[in-house]
């Protein structure tokens, strides 16, 4: 037996911060691992990678990465990252946050960042509820499912995140689960090269909250349910892929969109060159 002296990713993580805050059966450790694997393969120097988040369980991911990391206020990771990217376009800025952070409190910022085609990679882990505050429902909670604040079942329709991102003009759109780590890593790696707004939704279990409220005995059972309910369909019609697994509907995964569209930073630099070069 050989003794392990270092964590295999010790260059990329802050070892002194472990163990992490997440619950047993949570998918966020896998998500961090996938991000770091993609980062290693990206060819972009580690110093240029920056992680920004809002508030929530997912928003704690940056704190474990050995990068310049920014844990901001609830819902405001995207505008913070927008300012940082514009100020220093050499940075590869990734916003990694939860569904509640990015689409409930921060929804307005999401639609505008995507519309601008801002040069940011956004990884949204969707666990169908507010995990950190004890499992209340949000805009991604599936219909009829239970949560700490929908004890009689949720009556609100959900957001279809890839459909929203695509409709707003994002350059890249994908959806995976933490039970698809290879596909997810590849997707993050691809998205790191995208000019403009890249969006990846990652379904992730929340065993003590959403899982418990909806009859899953542990994280593994919840993950297994998502895996079995999933089909990969890269050319899916995005308007049809809202998530409704408790009524027999498949969860559609895939790399849905990868298109060239002028990005904000490209257009801003063209504007500055024109103003400074041509005079007025």
């Amino acid at each position, binding site marked *: 037996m050989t003794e392990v002296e270092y964590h295999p990713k010790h260059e990329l993580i*802050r070892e002194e*911060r472990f163990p992490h805050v997440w619950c047993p059966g949570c998918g966020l450790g896998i998500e961090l691992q996938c991000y770091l694997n993609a980062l290693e393969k990206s060819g972009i120097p580690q*110093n*240029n990678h*920056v992680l*920004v988040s809002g*508030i929530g369980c997912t928003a704690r991911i*940056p*704190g474990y990465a*050995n*990068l*310049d*990391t*920014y*844990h*901001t*206020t609830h819902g*405001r990771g*995207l*505008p*913070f*990252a*927008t*300012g*940082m*990217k*514009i*100020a*220093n376009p*050499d*940075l590869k800025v990734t916003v990694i946050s939860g569904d509640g952070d990015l689409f409930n409190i921060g929804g*307005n*910022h999401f639609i*505008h960042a995507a519309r601008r085609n801002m040069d940011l990679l956004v990884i949204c882990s969707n666990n169908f509820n507010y995990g950190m505050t004890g499992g209340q429902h949000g805009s991604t909670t599936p219909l009829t499912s239970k949560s700490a604040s929908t004890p009689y079942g949720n009556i609100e329709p959900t957001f279809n995140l890839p459909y929203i991102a695509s409709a707003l003009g994002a350059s890249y759109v994908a959806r995976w689960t933490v039970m698809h780590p290879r596909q997810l890593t590849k997707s993050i790696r691809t998205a790191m090269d995208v000019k403009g707004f890249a969006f990846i939704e990652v379904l992730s279990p929340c065993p003590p909250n959403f899982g418990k409220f909806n009859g899953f005995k542990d994280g593994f059972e919840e993950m297994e349910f998502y895996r079995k309910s999933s089909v990969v369909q890269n050319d899916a019609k995005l308007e049809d892929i809202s998530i409704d697994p408790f009524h027999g509907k498949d969860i559609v995964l895939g790399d849905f969109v990868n298109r060239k569209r002028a990005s904000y930073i490209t257009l*801003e630099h063209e*504007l*500055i060159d024109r*103003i*400074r070069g041509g005079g007025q």
Partner: protein
Amino acid sequence: MNFLPPGKYFADGNFALTEGAIHAGCRFFAGYPITPSSEVLERMSIRLPEIGGHFIEMEDEIASMAAILGASNGGSKSMTATSGPGFSLMQENIGLGVITETPTVVLDEMRGGPSTGIPTRVGQGDVMQTRWGSHGDLAPITYAPNSVQESFDLEIEAFNAAETYRQPVIVASDQVVGHLTEILEVKNMEDYHIVQRETRKTRNGNEGVYDYSRDFTPMFAAGTGFRGNVDSLTHDERGYPSNESSVEKEMLEHLLNKVRKNEDKIVKYEEFLVEDSKLVVVAYGITSRSVKRAVKEARKEGLKVGMFRPITLWPFPEKRIRQLAEQSKEFIVPEINYGQYSHSVREYSQTETKEMHFPPGAVPDYRVILKEIERCLK
């Protein structure tokens, strides 16, 4: 044009605030249109691309405040401009700037309130919001210009204070000063003291993101290899979150003391005929200009009255107010609100302090203030 060339200009306050910021090194502006500060945003949209800076109109004031903090951490001196309703929306992220020690400048051009109030007319109802607006303890720095010249000069000073004390600094102007047109004199660039940002790039051993044993530690700019964690949670010197009361104590006392210990360097005020005065009128911003006239008229009648004008609303000019309280039996505090700064004057002076309430929408009439001076001294 890079910098506004030296010379005399006939300009308004919003022009002066914008050009002052550019002189101070502002290269990033994020904002959302709002009366009466929109001219700052508009001029920034012309000026910043000219000098290779960055301008972005955000989706709201919450985003604007977040963006200028992001830009500052990305290495740019940054600012936003707003008024009452927008300033309310910025409060949470002003706190983010405080706890992460991020320098930036927030211009709040006060108008009538509460709520939408009177958007196009003057008010001074945000004074306490610049002090207590964001939750938790903080030691704010707020400048209140009363002229076009001061709008230019104090904007530079606000940027310098933001860089020195590493926190968001507020410039609380008002609708009248912003839209007032008068003489602005701009000196040669080399005659201005501009605090340049010093940043740390690489990290030595266990060097922290912060050092709570020192008042000032240079920040790091993203992407230079420092690999630090910047956190809205209470954090230790490493930048790592903590739930410990002892860490909160260490961090918070550092955040407060770096300003409190240096109050003498930060506090600015103007005095007018206070040497022998038995009554002192305390006024800031546009109200001080009515007060000055009232004091001049009262002096013609032989009344011993003077004016004390805080230029920094916060930190409160405590020492000087206490001294003035020894010589004068009473203070009068006219404000375009229903009693805000008067509370602090009363608290610090522990002297009879009469409030004068003026509703938002108009500059106080000097004759009303004069009558009050006469009533007190005759």
